[in-house]
């Protein structure tokens, strides 16, 4: 029994040492690969200003919310109508202390407008049907930013 255990342990020790050596080899290769990133994928970041870097990271979402920042009072409340949570969460981060509330349906839009005294409604990447539904309900002029985003002053 002891011999059997000792054989099993000896096998495990050999396995551990083999794994350790393989891990070391892999780590060196990946470290060299990491260093190479400084000369390849990271060069484009050097020399950019913060606005350019954030635009590159977050794309059109950042450009849009950043443009709203200077147009609204810090006490404003906004409703964003979108199926996706990302623009809502990103807008919340960029615009704070301006408050953003997320609505995923016309009923939620109505509820937020009623309860939060919102001054702006953003239709963010919603379907044409949902957009038409909201416009029928609000009957207000709409400012189209691009094919995905529209803004309505409430």
């Amino acid at each position, binding site marked *: 029994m002891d011999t059997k*255990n000792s054989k*099993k*342990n000896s096998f*495990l*020790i050999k*396995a*551990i*040492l083999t*794994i*350790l*050596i*393989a*891990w*070391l080899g*892999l*780590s*060196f290769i*990946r*470290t060299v690969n*990491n*260093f190479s990133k*400084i000369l390849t994928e*990271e060069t484009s*970041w*050097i020399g950019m200003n*913060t606005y350019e*870097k*954030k635009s590159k*990271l*977050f794309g059109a979402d950042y450009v849009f919310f950043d443009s709203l920042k200077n147009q609204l009072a810090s006490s404003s409340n906004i409703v964003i109508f979108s199926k996706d949570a990302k623009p809502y*969460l*990103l807008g*919340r*981060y960029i615009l*704070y*202390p301006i*408050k953003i509330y997320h609505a995923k349906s016309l009923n939620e839009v109505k509820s937020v407008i009623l309860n939060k005294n919102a001054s702006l409604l953003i239709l963010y990447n919603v379907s044409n049907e949902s957009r038409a539904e909201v416009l029928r309900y609000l009957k207000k002029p709409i400012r189209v930013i691009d094919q995905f985003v529209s803004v309505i002053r409430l």
Partner: protein
Amino acid sequence: MNIVIVLFLLVLTVYFGYSIIKFMRLEVGSLFFKFALGFGVGFGAIYLLMIIIYAIGLEWNATLIFFPIFFISACGFIFSYKHHKRINIAKLSGKSTFLFITIILLVGFVLFESTIRPLSAWDGWSSWQMRAKAMYLDQKITTGQFAYFETEYPLAVPLYSVFVYEILGEVDDTAILLVSFFFYAMIGLAAFSFLREKTSTNFAFLITFLLLSTQNIIRHGGRYESGMADIVMSFFVLITIILLHLALEKKSMMSLAFLLFVMALTSQIKNEGIVFSSIVFVVILYYAVIGRIARNWLLYLLYIVSMLVWPLLKEIYGLPGGILRSTPVLSVGIFVDVAKIQFLQYLNIQNWNLGWVYLITSTAYLIASKKINGVIIIILAQLVVYLIIFLFSSVDPVTHAEGITDRLLIHIFPAATVMISVFLYPMIKRQRFLN
């Protein structure tokens, strides 16, 4: 300029904590370990300072926060200057020198990465740094913030960011990523110092290099995942486990006091920290009963109260995530799916290289050799917890597990790598390539 100021604040945090350790006459571990521990203690003390200033009705401002930290650090520097030692690079072997230079280059790479881009991690801008920004701009902590952000996590990480923003005088979501980098570097320092004390210098450099070159840790330390709390948890879990090991050796009251303080801090980082520190506490109680660790019921009680503060505040103020108000749904049926996700994560070379393969094989060896101990039980228990939590998940458990298992495993990975390597060392030290 902000980057230089934040680096200064981080070094000051190390020295602030180190001074506290010196004043309290804690004698465990090497000088390097005390610096790493000092960063944890300094981080915790700054968190407490921010809470105290707010609780007594004063406003956070740079002078009020900076002065006590600077004063204590300066006193610590003056009183302990003579005791500082230096690592003698000339004494290192060829292998150690090579690994040392590689580690320094690696840390330099992560530092570069952490300063080149602004915060980009989803949970960083939707939760951790979002709350910091709100508390800084509002100059207060309100229940409304928690409701608005729908967050249930404790305050230590965001409040340290508020401390940085107060000194900077603005929100800088690029410079703040240096905090994650510093936790990465301190994980390396804590791991190396402890391994060097318990094994050989070559082996210490080897394991530290393997740990710091793990891609998931690099990502959280300075690339696209930095700015969240997972690397902070990794650091505190590592420090807790090392302190537990040292407290068992020393049996001193002060080592127990610092261990319990660090455990209380771990419970203030993420909710997972409450579970982790509770497991460690059960192990401590066991060791206290059999007389292997110092016994002090008042300290134990203080730890329990500190650990329960956050869950109690959530109940009292009706914050999101209160256990008494939740109606958890148990989905036992998905256990196998979640276990499979965790197992596949162990094999994910992209994230971990061969780290978990090494840990699983080594643990199997230690269990087969009947060398199991309290530390291994804590590590295994925490891994089981990371399966069980998904059974109570409010969102689709499988999607949830797929999304965050790699982040949960990072909490335990550095501590598991360091401790299992220490336990394994006597069995493998005869190998030529390790010496």
